[in-house]
């Protein structure tokens, strides 16, 4: 293997030299593309697409042409990336420049009406528009309030109010406190930063694990706090404790269901005798609930109290 041949090119390269060239080009490209930032990878605009093709074509030269040096193509790639970065930087600084280089979003449907001029400007056919609408789960033009052709070529759709999905806000449903879904334990180690961020303490976490019948942190593979404030624990030994806990939760939820049923039926009942029976049932159900929670510990339920 001759490094001069690898770097400057030769009439013929050995297999090993080709392999080394491939590895060097790969590492150089990864480094340079990382310099461009995450945005370039996830949001390909027309300019990004051209840059990506250009880089790919230039970088392929030293891999397929033995006489080509490695420096010139890699330098060219570096120049293209530098220009692209300058373009992005200028676009961030100037709205005018951003519009010039990347174009601007075009409104193609307004109040369910197609904007023909905008369609021409965006070189968009009716079939393509309808396909994009269907991708957005819209099948009638009349359902659309606004459709915008983005610079990436995608179409984003805003449905009319009556066609939008019902939200919890619409139903006036209290969704409660929302937690950031964070891991509190990973491979037996407590993640103190996440615990603190959630406003919880180590003693609280240990008491929860104890209530689940777990002997210690070393038995826990992961413990995650869900957005609803529930603690989901995954143990190395995926058997008894978790299952037991689920069974207990099921029993307690059945008692709560019984309480709710008896309360509701007592209210609905027309005759006094039946009403009294349901009330008696409700009181007994509460007693049973108390007995069991005392025996299993107050923290049997996996739901975290929001009173921190």
């Amino acid at each position, binding site marked *: 293997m001759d490094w001069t041949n690898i770097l400057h090119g030769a009439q013929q390269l050995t297999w090993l030299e080709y392999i080394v060239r491939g590895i060097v080009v790969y590492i150089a490209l990864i480094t340079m593309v990382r310099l461009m930032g995450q945005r370039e990878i996830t949001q390909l605009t027309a300019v990004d697409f051209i840059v990506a093709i250009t880089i790919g074509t230039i970088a392929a030269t030293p891999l397929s042409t033995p006489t080509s040096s490695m420096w010139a193509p890699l330098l060219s790639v570096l120049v293209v990336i530098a220009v692209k970065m300058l373009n992005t930087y200028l676009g961030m600084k100037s709205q005018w420049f951003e519009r010039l280089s990347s174009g601007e979003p075009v409104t193609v449907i307004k109040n369910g009406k197609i904007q023909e001029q905008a369609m021409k400007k965006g070189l968009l056919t009716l079939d393509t528009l309808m396909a994009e609408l269907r991708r957005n789960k819209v099948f009638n033009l009349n359902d659309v309030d606004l459709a915008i052709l983005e610079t990436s070529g995608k179409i984003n759709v805003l449905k009319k109010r009556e066609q939008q999905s019902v939200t919890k806000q619409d139903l006036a449903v209290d969704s409660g406190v929302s937690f950031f879904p964070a891991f509190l334990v990973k491979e037996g180690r407590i993640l103190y930063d996440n615990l603190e961020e959630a406003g919880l303490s180590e003693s609280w976490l240990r008491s929860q694990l104890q209530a689940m019948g777990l002997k210690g942190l070393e038995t826990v593979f992961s413990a995650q706090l869900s957005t609803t404030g529930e603690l989901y624990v995954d143990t190395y030994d995926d058997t008894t404790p978790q299952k037991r806990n689920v069974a*207990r939760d099921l029993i307690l939820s059945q008692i709560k269901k*019984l309480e709710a*049923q008896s309360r509701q*039926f007592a209210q609905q009942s027309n005759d006094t005798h039946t009403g009294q*029976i349901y009330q*008696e049932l409700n009181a007994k159900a509460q007693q049973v609930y108390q007995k069991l929670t005392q*025996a*299993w510990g107050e923290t049997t339920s996996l739901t975290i109290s929001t009173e921190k």
Partner: protein
Amino acid sequence: MKKLKQLKSVESTLLGLKGDLETERQLATNSNEAAAISSALLDVADMLKLIEQQIEQVQKVQGDNTNGLD
């Protein structure tokens, strides 16, 4: 009919609860837990008896009414 439906619904919940409690009693790891579950089971059995009596009464009344119509 609504009354019977409500009673049957409660009976179904109680039967499910009874079954789960019996399973849990077998798995109890200490005497306190076993005692609490046994006590809960007795309460559930009482409630079940009460509901079953009510169901019988309602069914009897309905049966009488049907015979009366005949």
